């Protein structure tokens, strides 16, 4: 390096101010290099969402296959046979046994040969013809309550349809409305309207997006910030014209990009492999994703301002973000099934709001008009988190041990 004496003198006094775009862009370039060179972490961060989509799709299912059904017909007649045929024809049931009494049922259930049983009373057709209540007992193996409810729903649907058919055939029975020959009060049919096949993919993809973004954004951002502190380079950065906000922005921006890439990967994979649609506006979806990424990043920064240890940052992110996102956001367990205190707690979990947004856009196809509440909550959370972090951003080292 040859000294260019006159050029140096002409260059004027000393270094530049440091907080122009030059310093920040140099910082971003550096962070990008760190990210790209840590091949292992990068591979995990890019591939993990893909793997999760596939795993969840193929392995975790809440659908049931063909239901093994036992039928108890003490006195077979026209109606019981008709209903039995309906069940067989529904395409969901494999009738594994037709019995005269229910004595064998416990054994069939215990051995797993039957998952469900339909029990007719004696004189079923007679009762129907005479306008009396003709109860049909549907017994379901509810060891797994999720699949149990699904099976019950399937069976009930078939019964209801039959019931409606019968009513349609006898319009002028003079029965008061609301009272059906089938006996039971008419319940509103609960067809799974947006997810008619109760396909799991539709359920979990939005939650998966939230989960992945939480990890990539919050966890990685907080680890990256604390890593700087641990290696000692933070000290050098602090004693420079770089302002703390520039350091934070520089550290965090690459993960915004990465998070966004992950969103695209997940949506694409879900679409291509499982046929999960985006019924609403894609642009709106991506915008809301960016908002949620910002919220997660703000959380990661907040965690990082409170600790200098990568290990603590990692654990705090895992416990404080991932667990609530998994359990309390409605990702896997519906909000309605949470006990009241936990449901209240879920209000502070950003993923919970984000899930409403994403499910709304992807599955229901709603526009921003219906999503203002959730969007504002997320935006408000982001602003609050950033505000708190900004006040804790240290211009200096923490004093005192």
């Amino acid at each position, binding site marked *: *390096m040859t*000294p*260019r*004496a*006159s050029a*140096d*003198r002409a*260059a004027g*006094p*000393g*270094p*530049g*101010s*440091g907080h*122009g775009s*030059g*310093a920040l*862009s*140099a*910082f971003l*370039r*550096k962070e990008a*290099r*760190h990210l790209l*060179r*840590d091949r292992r972490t990068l591979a995990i961060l890019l591939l993990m969402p893909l793997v999760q989509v596939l795993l969840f799709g193929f392995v975790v299912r809440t659908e049931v296959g063909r239901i093994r059904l036992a039928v108890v017909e003490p006195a077979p007649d026209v109606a019981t046979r008709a209903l039995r045929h309906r069940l067989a024809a529904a395409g969901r049931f494999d009738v594994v046994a037709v019995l005269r009494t229910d004595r064998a049922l416990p054994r069939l259930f215990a051995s797993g040969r039957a998952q469900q049983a339909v029990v007719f009373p004696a004189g079923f057709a007679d009762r129907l013809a005479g306008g009396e209540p003709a109860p049909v007992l549907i017994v379901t193996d509810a060891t797994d309550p999720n699949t149990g409810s699904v099976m019950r729903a399937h069976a009930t649907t078939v019964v209801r349809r039959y019931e409606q058919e019968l009513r349609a055939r006898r319009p002028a029975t003079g029965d008061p409305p609301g009272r059906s020959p089938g006996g039971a009060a008419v319940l509103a049919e609960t067809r799974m309207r947006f997810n008619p096949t109760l396909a799991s993919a539709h359920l979990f993809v939005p939650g998966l997006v939230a989960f992945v973004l939480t990890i990539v954004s919050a966890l990685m951002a907080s680890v990256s910030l604390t890593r700087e502190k641990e*290696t*000692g*380079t933070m*000290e*050098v*950065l*602090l*004693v*420079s*014209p*770089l302002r703390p906000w520039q350091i934070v922005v520089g550290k965090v921006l690459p993960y915004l990009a990465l998070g966004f890439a992950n969103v695209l990967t997940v949506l694409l994979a879900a679409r291509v492999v499982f046929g999960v649609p985006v019924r609403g506006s894609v642009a709106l979806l991506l915008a809301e994703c960016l908002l949620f990424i910002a919220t997660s990043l703000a959380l990661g920064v907040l965690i990082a301002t409170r600790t200098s240890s990568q290990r603590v940052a990692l654990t705090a992110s895992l416990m404080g973000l991932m667990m609530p996102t998994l359990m309390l956001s409605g990702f896997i367990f519906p909000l309605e099934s949470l006990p009241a205190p936990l449901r209240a707690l879920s209000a502070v979990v950003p993923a919970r709001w984000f899930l409403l947004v994403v499910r709304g856009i992807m599955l229901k196809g709603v526009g921003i008009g219906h999503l203002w509440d959730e969007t504002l909550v997320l935006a408000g959370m982001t602003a609050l988190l950033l505000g708190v972090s900004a006040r804790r951003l240290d*211009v*200096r*080292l923490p*004093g*005192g*041990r």
Partner: protein
Amino acid sequence: MSAPASAGPRAPVGDAPVVAARGLGVRFGRAAALDGVSFEVRPGELFGVIGPDGAGKTTLFRVLVSLLVPDTGESRVLGLDPVGDLWALRARVGYMPGRFSLYPDLTVEENLRFFAAVFGTTPERGGALIAPVYGQIAAFRDRRAGALSGGMKQKLALSCALVHRPEVLFLDEPTTGVDAVSRREFWDLLGELRGAGLTTMVSTPYMDEAARCDRVALMQGGRLLEVDTPAAVAAGYPLPLIAVRVADPRARVRLLATLRAYPHAHRVVPFGATVHYTDARPGGDAAAIADALAAHLRAAGFAGATAAPTPASVEDRFMALMGPEGA
């Protein structure tokens, strides 16, 4: 080789102290990391802060570069207050903290370019100032910093601290953990930088490095024991000092015991190839004491024992100032 003055750092104006501290105090919990620290560093000086781990060197440096606010006292660097004028100050100082403070997964070149950009400049503009340092590692410009040896890492860190042409340099234990050869080379570099007009404050636990500084501050337990030129510090040794040698190195343990039992022994410590014996009688005739000592030793069966007055070193003085209880 001396660089042309115009391509070096901007020379400080006049002879106002570049660094000044008055009564600095820092407490961490109940322990005082700094206690009443006062001193000045003059323009163009290579100023050493010499002291063991826990002396407070790092804390002192952090106060001066505006990373830590002192609990008591105040300081000025380049006339600026690190507490109030930190942004103005940070643009003009170079700082190398104690640990390896570079990015191991970036190359030498990338590290340098990054730290230059943070200060709004480029390595090329760093020019002649970093040339002697960078010249020694330029061959490895594409190697990842994490793959360099300890000595090379320190040189890179020094280059990065210099690249924005600071007016004053703060190096916190740059030679710790580095082998003796690399340490020498590093201090040679610092000497060259001093020649170019840079003011530098360096801290180190190695007493022998004190001799390479213009002035030193001896530090222990948060306090300054003495601030002066190395020669003056050493010359301030209060008692006669004798260096004793014996032919058989294995007799060393017995030698120490024998000397300690000698009537006027004040302090007896191993010192490299010799043993340093300090006599308790101030103002005594060192030559005479030495002769008496040698005779005593030969009589005690130490063949070929020699004793001669020896000038004290900074390390001797440090031990004297430390007081009786080590650590």
